[in-house]
């Protein structure tokens, strides 16, 4: 008896010393949010948190009538730290769900935690294709509210082909996300009759494209690029100053609102595709952009929008569940039944728990928009592919039968 008491005392003394707190009272929705708020991706991490918190602030810190306890944890851009933090959120804070994760690798690392801890994980940015494709069956408590890397690029491949482009050179960051964006573009482009004649893979974080630009084949009539972060700023600048005038038809991340304000006039006219643009001309988006700019003093990108609309999704789902959290299985069912009108457009989940959403083909333009009085660079929408699925037009079964897009898949049939 005494030893039992001692044990408890010791344990609780230790717990107190470490500042542990137990779960709080009922009727409170506890949400863990994992983002890289320090380290290399700190700014993106902050944008993610801002997007979600903006929705909470607009709605009196309530989702579907429940008070929200919103706990942000820093994964420092490292997948295994993300896992530690996710476990902390589940085990210590007893969260109902955890949301977030920026990098594809973080998404892959966090999904198993949802399975082992039987807790809902919502991937609100991370876009690794296979999580909602061939690997989904392993993760019954996983939902994605953002996109798959290849989703917008299937549409872009089709669009480029429709414009009459015949031969494309692709240049993309050398990692899984780059492979998946290229895979989507190449598949749709070649199925329509185009040819990818060269693939160039500069390492992630490349700032000097000097060794790569001169190798771009002269007979190509367009360039597809996937550039991330600082790469996005450098590539168009160096390409144009090298005198190459070929049109760029790029992944949306090469020109998203995260990098666009820092770009020079050389990017005007470049085309890219994504499931969001700050220039979407709908009342929902205009209101979102205005409120976001007023609050944070910058243009919202998809990192913020995707998290804002995730909060919106949760709001609706909790409302439909009658103002309480019904457990992961039931909650996922409710989420799948919702047709959301988000700033990015209409969104709903497919049966593989990935969004079906609009893809916007966008052209960089310098203009005044949305009542702002300065000339700014905007991703003007020039074509909308409505309700695009992660399987594009191939159908789920046919698409899932092929391997996940990789450095060598689809093979470069037309490369010399």
């Amino acid at each position, binding site marked *: 008896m005494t030893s039992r008491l001692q044990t408890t005392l*010791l*344990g609780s003394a230790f717990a107190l010393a470490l500042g542990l707190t137990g779960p709080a009272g009922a009727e409170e929705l506890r949400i863990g949010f994992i983002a890289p708020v320090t380290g290399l991706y700190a700014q993106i991490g902050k944008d993610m948190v801002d997007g979600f918190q903006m929705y909470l602030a607009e709605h009196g810190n309530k989702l579907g009538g429940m008070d929200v306890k919103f706990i942000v944890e820093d994964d420092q851009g490292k997948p*295994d730290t993300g896992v*530690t933090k996710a476990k902390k959120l589940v085990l210590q804070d007893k969260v109902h769900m955890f949301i977030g994760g920026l990098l*594809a*690798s973080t998404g892959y690392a966090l999904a*198993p935690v949802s399975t082992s801890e039987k807790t809902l994980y919502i991937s609100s940015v991370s876009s690794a294709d296979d999580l909602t494709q061939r690997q989904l069956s392993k993760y019954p408590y996983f939902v994605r509210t953002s996109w798959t890397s290849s989703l917008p690029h299937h549409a872009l491949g089709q669009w480029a082909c429709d414009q009459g482009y015949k031969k494309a050179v692709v240049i993309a960051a050398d990692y*899984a996300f780059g492979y998946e964006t290229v895979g989507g573009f190449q598949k749709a482009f070649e199925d329509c009759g185009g040819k990818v004649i060269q693939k160039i893979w500069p390492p992630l974080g490349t700032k000097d494209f000097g060794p790569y630009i001169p190798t771009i084949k002269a007979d190509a009539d367009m360039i597809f690029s996937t550039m991330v972060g600082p790469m996005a700023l450098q590539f168009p600048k160096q390409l144009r100053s090298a005198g190459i005038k070929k049109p760029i038809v790029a992944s949306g991340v090469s020109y998203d609102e995260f990098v666009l304000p820092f770009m020079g006039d050389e990017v005007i006219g470049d085309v890219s595709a994504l499931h969001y643009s700050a220039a979407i001309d709908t009342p929902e988006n205009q209101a979102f952009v205005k409120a976001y700019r007023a609050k944070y003093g910058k243009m919202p990108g998809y990192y913020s929008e995707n998290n804002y609309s995730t909060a919106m999704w949760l709001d609706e789902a909790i409302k439909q569940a009658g103002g309480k959290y019904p457990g992961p299985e039931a909650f996922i069912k409710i989420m799948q039944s919702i047709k959301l009108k988000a700033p990015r457009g209409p969104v709903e989940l497919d049966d593989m728990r990935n969004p079906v959403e609009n893809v916007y083909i966008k052209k960089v333009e310098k203009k005044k928009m949305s009542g702002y009085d300065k000339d700014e660079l905007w991703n003007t929408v020039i074509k909308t592919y409505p309700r695009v699925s992660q399987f594009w037009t191939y159908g789920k079964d046919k698409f899932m039968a092929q391997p996940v897009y990789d*450095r060598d898949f689809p093979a470069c049939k037309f490369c010399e």
Partner: protein
Amino acid sequence: MVSQQVKILIVVASLALLAYIVPHSGSFVVLLATRTMAFAILAMSVDILLGFTGLSSMGQAAYFGVGAYLTAVLATKFHFGMGWDFWLVVVLGMLLGAALAALFGLFAIRAGGVYFLMITLALGQCVWGLAYRWNSLTGGDNGINLSGRPNFGLDLGNDVTFFYLVLAFFAASMLTMYVLVRSPFGRSLAGIRERELRMQILGYNTWLHKYLAFIIAGGFGGLAGVLWAHTNGHVSPETVVLTTSVDSLLMVVLGGAGTLVGATIGTAIVFGLREYLSTLVPWWQYALGGVYVLTILYLPMGLMGVPRRIRQWLGSHGGKEGSKKLATKPS
């Protein structure tokens, strides 16, 4: 002056206390303690090189990485190592770590000082490059997920059980390394650290001594990697990245090189700040930076030098007892 027996007693008592307290203090603390101890094995292996042999290796993550990737690849591709064969994986992990160190050592041991540092850094980056680019084996940037922990009658899926296992490995590693550095072999390593030329003149094959120390450190690095793979069930190039090597080196310096215990304390402090304090406050990085700066400025012998600093400060004559050797003595 505290005698060696008392020091050993303190270490044993702290480990026993840890084994008693941690399981009663919240599942997150259990997880953190497990991670800390798995990583501390790596830090101690760095200490063998830095503290006892005088070689500052910047590529220790390589052995850690091969151990972790071996575990993950065997488990996911061959369903090997999820039952009793976990013990086989432990042995294989150590052997692979040691074998890789034996290979890298051929290049690295020829050099000393900053050149040794640069060569180990470059070799470590080679392993990182492989992990990052060999997509078919390592999953590239996405890494590999393990599906659960081994279960051989003893279910390691239980965090507390796994904690005890890692604690046991940690204690065994510490004991082995302690015996090693106190052996004649360990003494000659210390001799090489102090003055290599003199050891050569005395007839010691210093290259071989350093080479063996390098291989042993690699073996322990591999062991740490195997355990690390199971702590979070995820292995990615982040496991092998340069900062992992740098971290392990900093932890040793922070705690006090040449003490083994110091490496562990350093690991505990860094993990405590980085993974625990970061859940409480946003300015944890300043705390971590501050600790590093203050240690370098005021405690050149790391935190293990604190008792001596206190004795000096109190005006007692630490010098009598061989002040320079004190901090570098294994405790």
